[in-house]
């Protein structure tokens, strides 16, 4: 087998192993399926260009790191568009509700947790999602976020505390969510 065959086979395996997980990642963070498909296309195009740079043990983390950047660029593009529309004194079109196809849990509690996530800082929400929705271990999260494993542990701990605070507030307002611990830290360390 030549190196060319090796590269092509590796890309094929990469695509087979991770397309669905990258698609799920993009769907969770996009407003609709088409937007998610665009993200996935950008991610795998980048992977094709740089297949030799992808570390064997961190393939998914590498792909999700690319997806994160693609999404950030897309958000920036949306923000530019919205500012332009504002300047033109036009109302920005309302984004459609996320298409939560393949939804796992549409209960009110799940809705409240998602709402609480939405009120967190983006970095806190992202690390919680990587740990619980993508179910990545700390070492993989560190690759996605380009930080150390220790930093992941610290950030994750703080993000959990902040989410607990948000849920506690929500519980105080509605009584619907039932946090299991009475002690919710209010750590405000960035």
């Amino acid at each position, binding site marked *: 087998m*030549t*190196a*060319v*065959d*090796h*590269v*092509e*086979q590796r*890309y*094929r395996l990469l*695509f*087979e192993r991770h*397309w*669905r*997980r990258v*698609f*799920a990642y993009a*769907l*969770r963070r996009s407003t609709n399926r088409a937007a998610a*498909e665009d993200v*996935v*296309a950008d991610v*795998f*195009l980048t992977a*094709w*260009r740089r*297949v*030799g*740079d992808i570390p064997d043990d961190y393939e998914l983390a590498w792909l999700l790191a690319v997806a994160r950047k693609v999404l950030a660029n897309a958000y920036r593009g949306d923000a530019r568009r919205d500012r332009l529309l504002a300047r033109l004194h036009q109302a920005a079109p309302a984004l459609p509700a*996320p298409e*939560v*196809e*393949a*939804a*796992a*849990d549409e*209960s009110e*509690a*799940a*809705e409240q*947790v*998602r709402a609480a*996530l939405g009120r967190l800082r983006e970095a806190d929400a992202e690390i*919680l*999602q990587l*740990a*619980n*929705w993508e*179910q990545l271990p700390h070492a993989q999260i560190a690759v996605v976020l380009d930080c150390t494993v220790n930093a992941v542990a610290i950030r994750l701990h703080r993000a*959990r505390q902040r*989410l*607990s605070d948000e*849920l506690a507030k929500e519980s105080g307002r509605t009584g619907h*969510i039932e*946090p*299991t*611990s009475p*002690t919710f830290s209010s750590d405000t360390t960035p």
Partner: protein
Amino acid sequence: MSDTDHDLDNLLRAANPVDEDRLPLPSESPGAQLLYEKITGTPYSGSARRARRRWAGPGLAAVLAVAGGGAVAAYAISSHVSSHLAVTCYAAPNLESRALIVPAEAAGPVATCSRAWVDGRLGTGGPPLLVACATPQGVAAVLPSAPGGDVCGQLGLPALPAGATSLTSTTPPTAASTPPTDAPGTMSPGVRDAIITALRATCLTSAQAELSITKVLAKANVNWAVVTPTPFPPGRPCASPGFDEEAKQVVLTGIPPPGSS
């Protein structure tokens, strides 16, 4: 991790809006397969080796014309290298070493791979002395070499000229190469010109170019050709069409924006 953390994690997992297990696998998703084919230029269902030989088969009669910057250049087909869109750059003087497949640049395969070395993608310390050979699969392979060494000969491969302006080893580029007009499925020069004109005026992304070409083909009632994008390297964001009539493809490659050198 405390019980509280466990409870919180359970809540979070229950709030996951997309159950991954209910999404299709690539083998079940036509969209995923189309994406794979568009990116790699190889059929999803076939093996990579067999698929690539679609480009590299003997007697390849494809005409690959690359239009860019207002000038049209058409490359004649070489007896040695027939995959003009990509170059394989090796990190060591053997075909089993680490390799990068990169889009071919007009300056030739050695210059193409030198850039990969300069960028640090193949090693540190800048590009070593490089030589270009033609692999049996019809791909240009660029390998490091000792001064005066004969890497291609040692590997049993024909050498390519280092300063080649196209990926041809024996035939220089010609100013124009017209497909035989009586060949079945041949695209008329008028349609090719319309495609080139549609893409020449401005810098179109791959997706925009694909849409424009699809419209031109539909208008001309050409329903046998497909548009196949290839990866655009950094600094070459504008789509340029190539015509591979044997494979019935209009291949999109990346070129620098109009007006840039």
